[in-house]
């Protein structure tokens, strides 16, 4: 009897031990892969580009890189958008991260501070590639003067307007509005009211973008800068909110809501059907027009300035390629990042995906690329010209989650439950408190 019991426990223990061995597979697997690639170093690259448009493009870039290398082979892993960064974080904590990851440019400095991303200055000392990129993008990757990610792609916000509608109401289709005052004046002319509803809406500032872009546009600076200075409760912001409220009163909730839901549903965007004459969006919105309203006669312009001479400040974001802390092949990863952000790969990405890229030369070359239609080139050219006006909103280290404090206050303003003055005072106090807590 007893012997049988012993046998049982022996088997159980053996099973257990073999189970434990499973935990070590991670490192074995890495070694096996390297051997499989004929002695080459494998760079594990994570991106969220899994769509049928993006995936072939990035994989072609990787293939070209691999063909050009004797020592390195890049292996692409697609991780869905909703998982990629939490998975990355877990793998960094576990000490077995990938070697290159595409991440949000806004919080690059924060990840540098938390030692999630590797300090790239050791590589940049040898080959400084910072000049390749738009300065505003490069700036966003810096924490205490060192870079923690290399800009890959970006975006900006521009004004689309319907040329036919302009002609119809006697406006010059080559002269889009350049100031807020003109924007209002043009919109009033373009409005076509029909009883309680509109057959055509001139413009509404909160379609396509949010209040924060207009605050940025008017103030020319972020509400919280990278030193933790809070500039929420300012005259400019109050005037901006008053201006936005003016638009809301003019059209009324019902009209705005019904237009908004059409915009959200994409295909039936009223801008495609001429029911909305002017609309702010990213340059890539052009691809939607191309797909859903190829006949539309439209033009593009920079965002109007709040006052003449105040600047056409716009807002953008983007993604960086970074090396997670603890990567086992940082040198090889750097080689790949250099290739990924160099002119050829960037231009290929830009043309094939119709996307704005961080590399200045590649962006400028794309705007002239003969592979694209004339319309595509015009919009792309506008995006390139708009980049110097484009500000990023990097996550401030002192108040990384400040939007959760400001947004509800502004919501209350737009719902008519708080005056702009009171809301901005409250938001200012709340964000200052957050900054103080984090110091």
């Amino acid at each position, binding site marked *: *009897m*007893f012997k049988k*019991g012993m046998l*049982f*426990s022996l088997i*159980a223990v053996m099973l*257990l031990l073999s189970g434990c061995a499973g935990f070590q597979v991670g490192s074995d697997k890495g070694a096996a892969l390297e051997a499989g690639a004929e002695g080459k170093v494998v760079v594990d690259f994570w991106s969220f580009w899994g769509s049928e448009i993006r995936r072939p493009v990035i994989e072609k870039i990787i293939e070209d890189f691999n063909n050009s290398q004797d020592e390195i082979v890049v292996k692409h892993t697609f991780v869905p958008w909703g998982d990629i*960064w*939490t998975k990355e*974080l877990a793998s*960094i*904590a576990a000490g077995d991260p990938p070697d290159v990851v595409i991440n949000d440019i806004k*919080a690059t400095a*924060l990840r540098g501070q*938390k*030692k*999630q991303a590797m300090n790239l200055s050791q590589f940049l000392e040898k080959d400084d590639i910072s000049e390749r990129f738009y300065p505003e993008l490069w700036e966003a990757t810096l924490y205490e003067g060192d870079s923690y990610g290399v800009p890959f792609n970006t975006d900006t916000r521009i004004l689309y307007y319907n040329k036919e509608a302009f002609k119809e109401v006697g406006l010059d289709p080559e002269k889009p509005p350049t100031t807020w005052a003109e924007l209002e004046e043009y919109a009033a002319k373009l409005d076509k009211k029909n009883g309680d509803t509109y057959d055509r809406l001139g413009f509404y500032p909160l379609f396509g973008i949010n209040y924060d872009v207009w605050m940025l546009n008017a103030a020319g600076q972020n509400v919280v800068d990278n030193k933790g200075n809070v500039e929420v409760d300012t005259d400019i912001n109050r005037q901006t909110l008053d201006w936005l409220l003016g638009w809301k009163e003019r059209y009324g*909730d*019902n009209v705005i*809501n*019904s*237009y*908004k*839901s*059409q915009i*959200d*549903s994409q295909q039936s965007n009223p801008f495609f059907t001429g029911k909305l004459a002017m609309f702010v969006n990213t340059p890539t919105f052009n691809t939607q027009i191309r797909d859903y309203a190829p006949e539309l006669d439209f033009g593009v312009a920079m965002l109007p300035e709040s006052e003449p001479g105040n600047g056409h400040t716009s807002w953008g974001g983007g993604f960086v390629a970074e090396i997670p*802390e603890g990567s086992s092949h940082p040198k090889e990863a750097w080689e790949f990042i250099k290739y990924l952000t160099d002119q050829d790969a960037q231009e290929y990405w830009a043309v094939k995906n119709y996307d704005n890229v961080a590399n200045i030369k590649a962006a400028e070359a794309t705007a002239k690329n003969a592979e694209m239609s004339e319309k595509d080139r015009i919009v792309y050219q506008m995006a390139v010209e708009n980049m110097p006006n484009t500000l990023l909103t990097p996550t401030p280290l002192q108040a*990384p*989650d400040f*939007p*959760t*404090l400001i*947004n*509800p206050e502004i*919501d*209350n303003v737009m*719902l008519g*439950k708080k005056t702009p003055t009171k809301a901005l005072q409250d938001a200012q106090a*709340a964000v200052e*408190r*957050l900054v103080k*807590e984090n110091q």
Partner: protein
Amino acid sequence: MKKRKLHFKRQEGLVGYIFILPWIIGFLIFTAGPLLFSLGASFTNYNITSQMDFIGIRNYEKLLMDDQLFWTSLYNTLYYVAFSVPLTTIGAIFLSVLLNQDVPGLRFFRTIYYLPAVLSGVGVYLLWMQLLDPGTGLINMMLGWVGIDGPNWLFDPEWTKPSLILMKLWSVGGGMLLYLASLQGVPKSLYEAAEIDGASTWQQFRYITIPMITPVIFFDVVTSLIGGFQIFQEAYVMTNGGGGPVNSLLFYNYYMWNKAFKVFDMGYAMAMSWVLFLIVFVLTMINLKLAPRWVHYEGEAKK
């Protein structure tokens, strides 16, 4: 002889433990371990990658005294639980009683009502976002037919949480199935006896049906209470990663997730999870204490 028997019993016990060993080890490594780790780390400034210094109860202090959104998120969550748990329970009971009647096409109806419980996740949320659209959504359109000017649902802070509760009510089919099973188990003889005694339908329902299914009601209330406190996905998807208008959909777990994975303040998030654990623990304890007063088990002798 006696000695041998004892020995055998001990052996049997040993074998039993070996059989459940995988589960015990799994529990220790994957549940108890992380649980204790998070308790420990909630007293530190842990940020996953670069720091883990002991800071005493500062996380808890900050959470309860200083945090400007902790109470908002807790209020939102309590509001949701307070309405969704009773409503879904009553809804599920009501539905299961209806579907327990002998009418033609019963199987068809059961399938239809259970279907939403099969569909789940992001697709359903997106569908509801369209249904609830104030301008073009089906719900406001139907309200319009009977002359009601529908609310702005997901855009009006007063209506965002009711919107979610409405959505939850749509998928009571899961609970319905449990009740249906237990309704089938109520002995017919009880109803026959009651009928002979002249009990009305309502009395039969109130004094026979309800008491007989109380164990399932109890189970449903406890699990949906715990589940209700964990609401996260709905808010995350339906607000596109914001907190909804005026932070009205900033639920506790969602706020915690933000602190952990957006701000990387993992120690703080772990402290938050322990506060939630305590709240849920106390509520479940109260539930268990109250249970003997209203839950009837078949064949149980009443004291």
